[in-house]
C-alpha cells in the first residue's frame, strides 16, 4: 500500500470488513449448549465435545485442500471404511497390541495409494473429480466388503484405539485431556500451516482459481492437484484412526462423512470449485455441525426435526457468507 496507489482513484484504506460468520455461529451454538446444560462448562463436558469433533474436523481440513484446488473428494468416507475394516478384518484377526505400530503406517500407505489414484485419474484421464471420487467411493466400499467378507474379522487393539479413546486424566486446569484433542490441535496446525503459510498453499489456490493461467505461470498444476488428493486421503486415514479408536470397529464406519466434510468446509466459507477456503474456518464449520447435533440432542427434538434444522442452518450459513462477501467485495 503506497503513495500513488493511495492517491488515485480516491480509495478507502481501511481493511475490508467481515469476520467469518461461521465463528459467530459456533460461539452462539456453544453458548446455547452451555445454557441448556451447564455441565457442558466443565472440562469433561467440552473436552468430550472436542474429542467427538476431532475426527470430522481433521477430515474436513484435509477435504478443504481438494476443494480449494477446485475439486471434490467423495471417497474419504470409503477410505476410512476400507483402511479400518481391512485392519479390523485381515490384519488383526488376533488382537495383537504391537501390530498398531506397523498397521497405522500401512493404513497411511493405502491412503497414499488411494489419493494418488484419485489425483492421477482427475489430472490425466480428465475425469471430473465429482465422478472420479464417486467411482472411487463405490469401488473402495466394494473392496472393503470383499476383503472382509462383509463384516470386520477382528478387533482393534487398545494401543490402536488409544488415539480416539484415551483421556489423559488429572491435567492441571482442564482436568482431562483426550488424546484425540491433542491430535486435532497438531494436525489442525499442520493443515493450517500448509494451506496458509506455504508457497504450496498459494499454488493450491491458484490452480483452483484458474488452472490454465496457473500452468502458464509455471505452477506444476498436475503435481499440486494430485498432492491435494493425497493430503485429503491421508487425513481421511488419520480421521479414521481416531474415529475407529472412539467407536470401535464396525462395518460401514465413515460412510456419510464425505458430505459432512464438504459441508463443514462450505459452512466455513470455502468456495466450491476452488480458489478460496480457510482451514480454521473449516474446522469451525466442523465444530458447528457437531454442536448442532449435540444441541438438538439436548433439546430432545425428534430426529426428523433435527434434519430440518440442519438443512436450514446449512443453507442459511452459506447464504449469509455469500451475502457478506458480496457486501465486502471479497
Amino acid at each position, binding site marked *: 500500500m503506497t503513495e500513488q496507489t493511495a492517491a488515485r482513484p*480516491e480509495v478507502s484504506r481501511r481493511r475490508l470488513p467481515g469476520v467469518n460468520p461461521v465463528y459467530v455461529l459456533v460461539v452462539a451454538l456453544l453458548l446455547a449448549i452451555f445454557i441448556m446444560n451447564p455441565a457442558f462448562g466443565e472440562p469433561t463436558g467440552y473436552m468430550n465435545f472436542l474429542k467427538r469433533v476431532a475426527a470430522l474436523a481433521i477430515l474436513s481440513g484435509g477435504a478443504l485442500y481438494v476443494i480449494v484446488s477446485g475439486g471434490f473428494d467423495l471417497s474419504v468416507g470409503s477410505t476410512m471404511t476400507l483402511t479400518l475394516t481391512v485392519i479390523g478384518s485381515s490384519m488383526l484377526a488376533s488382537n495383537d497390541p504391537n501390530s498398531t505400530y506397523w498397521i497405522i503406517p500401512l493404513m497411511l500407505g493405502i491412503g497414499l495409494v488411494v489419493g494418488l489414484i484419485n489425483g492421477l485419474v482427475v489430472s490425466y484421464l480428465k475425469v471430473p473429480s465429482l465422478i472420479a471420487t464417486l467411482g472411487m467411493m463405490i469401488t473402495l466400499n466394494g473392496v472393503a466388503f470383499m476383503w472382509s467378507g462383509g463384516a470386520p474379522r477382528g478387533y482393534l487393539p487398545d494401543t490402536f484405539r488409544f488415539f480416539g479413546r484415551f483421556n489423559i486424566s488429572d491435567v492441571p486446569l482442564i482436568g482431562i485431556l483426550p488424546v484425540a484433542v491433542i491430535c486435532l490441535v497438531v494436525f489442525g496446525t499442520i493443515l493450517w500451516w500448509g494451506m496458509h503459510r*506455504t*508457497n504450496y498453499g498459494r*499454488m493450491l489456490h491458484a490452480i483452483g*482459481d484458474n488452472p490454465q*493461467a496457473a500452468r*502458464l505461470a509455471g505452477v506444476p498444476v498436475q503435481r499440486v492437484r494430485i498432492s491435494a488428493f493425497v493430503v485429503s486421503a491421508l487425513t481421511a486415514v488419520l480421521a479414521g484412526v481416531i474415529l475407529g479408536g472412539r467407536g470401535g470397529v464396525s462395518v460401514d464406519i465413515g460412510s456419510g462423512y464425505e458430505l459432512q466434510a464438504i459441508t463443514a468446509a462450505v459452512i466455513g466459507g470455502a468456495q466450491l470449485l476452488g480458489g478460496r477456503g480457510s482451514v480454521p474456518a473449516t474446522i469451525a464449520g466442523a465444530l458447528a455441525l457437531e454442536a448442532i447435533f449435540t444441541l438438538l440432542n439436548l433439546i430432545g427434538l425428534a430426529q426428523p426435526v433435527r434434519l430440518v434444522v440442519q438443512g436450514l442452518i446449512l443453507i442459511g450459513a452459506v447464504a449469509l457468507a455469500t451475502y457478506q462477501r458480496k457486501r465486502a467485495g471479497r
Partner: protein
Amino acid sequence: MIDAPVIEMRGISKSFPGVKALRGVSFACARGEVHALCGENGAGKSTLIKILSGVYRPDAGEVLIDGKAQHFSHPQNALLAGISVIYQEFSLLRERTVAQNLFLGREPLKNGIIDSRAMITETQRVLALFGIRHRIKPETLVADLDVASQQMVEIAKAISLNAKVIVMDEPTAALNEAECEVLFALVDRLRASGTAIVYITHRMREVTRIANRVTVIKDGEVTASFDTVPAPEVIVRAMVGRDISEYYPEPAAPAEIGKPVLTIAGGSNASLRDIDLELRAGEIVGFAGLQGAGRTALAMAIFGAAPLTAGTMTLDGKTVRLLTPRDAIRAGIGMLPGDRKASALVLMQSVRDNGMLTARSFAHALGRRNSNRFIGIEGMDGLLDQMKVRAPSYEQEMRFLSGGNQQKAIVARWLALRPKVLIFIEPTRGIDVDTKASIYHLMRDLARGGAAVMMVSSDLPEILGASDRIVVMRDGRIVGQFDRTATEAELMLAATGEAAGVAA
C-alpha cells in the same frame, strides 16, 4: 447536424467496495455522432458504460433516453430501449455457433419453434457487412474461431440489433489494421444512418480517425470535453494530467545488442513451418502479422506451451528441449499471454498473490509464502508501485481491477524472475497511453539489462515504434525481417503476402 441527445447521463456516481469508480459524471451522445470516451485504465469508462446498459445501477444520477428518465435493472431493459453494447471483455458462448451467439436470447421463432434457417441467413447478411462472410461460417463454433474473428462476431452481434445507440468498449483491441479499417467503414455507415455511437479506445489515431466529439474521464470524473476532436497531445494531457515526453524510448545502439540468446533452426509444429530465428541480448524484436499468422503459436512454442515438434532451439548456445512452460521458465524464458483473463490471471487471489505466483511456483513448495529466493512481499510491492498498479490495496482481489491494471500486475510477476527472454503478446492491448509508454520503457530497460525481448503485436505503430528489429509472419512461416525504418505499408504487404519482404 448534431441534434438532441439520444442518451444523456447526468451526475452519475458509482462506488465499489473500496473504490469510488465514478463521481458525478455527465455524458451525452446524439444521433449521427461518434462520441469518443477516453481515460486511463481504471478511469471508469467501462463502469459508466455498464451503468448505461443496466449491468450496474448508479449510486446517484440519472440516465435519460430520448429525454425520458430510465431505470434499468437488467441489461434486457437497455437492449429493449435500443442500446447495444460491445463489452470490453468477450461475452460469447464458446460452445455455441456463430449464429446462435448472434441471436443469443432473441432467437427468431416460427410458430413457437426456433427458426434456425432464418438465423443462418440473417447471420450471413450481417457478416457480409464486414466482408467476412467467407471467413466466418454461421455454423462454426465460436470456440473454433481465433481472437480476431471472435471480436468480429462480438461487433456483428451488436450491429445486428439495429440499435439506435451502439457502445463500443475497445472494439479494436484484438484487431489488426485491415480489420480496423473494416470496422471504421462500418462506423461511418452507421453514423450516416443516424445511429449514435459511443466509442472507447486507448488508440489516439482511432479517435482522430472517427470521432466527432471527445470526453475524457480521469479518476472517475470528467476532466475535459471537446465538441471537435483536438490534437492527440491535448487529449492525452487531459487524461494523464501532463505531457508524455518521449512516448517511445530510444532504440538500442548497435553496441548494446549482444550475442544471440535464443536461436531456432528449422522449427516446426502443427501451426508453424521451418522457423529460423535469432533473438539477441539487448534487442527488442517485434512480431507482426495478421491474426492466425502463427505469432502466438511461435510464442507458445518457445514457451513450451505448444512445443516445437521439429527443429532445434538453443539458449545461450546450449541446445534445449522445452516441453512445458515450467521447462521454459526454468530456462529463463517468460511470457505475458494475450488473453489475460483466460491465461494469466487468478482473479479470486490478491494482486500480490498474482504477482508472486511464478516466483512461488519455483521456490520451495513448503517454503514461507512471503519471501523466497526470487523476491519477498516488500520487493513485490515495490514492483507493483513501480508499475503504478492502481488498487485500493494489494490485498484487493484481482477481479476488481481494471483491465490495464491487471496487465501491469502480470508484468510485475515476470520482473520478479529477471528472465533472459521475455515474450510479450499484445502487451498494450487495452492499456492507456501513459501506461503504454511506461511498458515500452520497461521493455527497453529489460533489454538494456541484457534480456532478449520478443513482442507479438497487431498494432503496427507500436511494432515500428518500440522494436529494434521486426519479424513478419504469415501462415506459420517467417516471411520477412525488417529494421525499424520500415514503413507500415511494407509490413502490411509482407503480412498479407501481396509481396515478399526482404529475406533476412
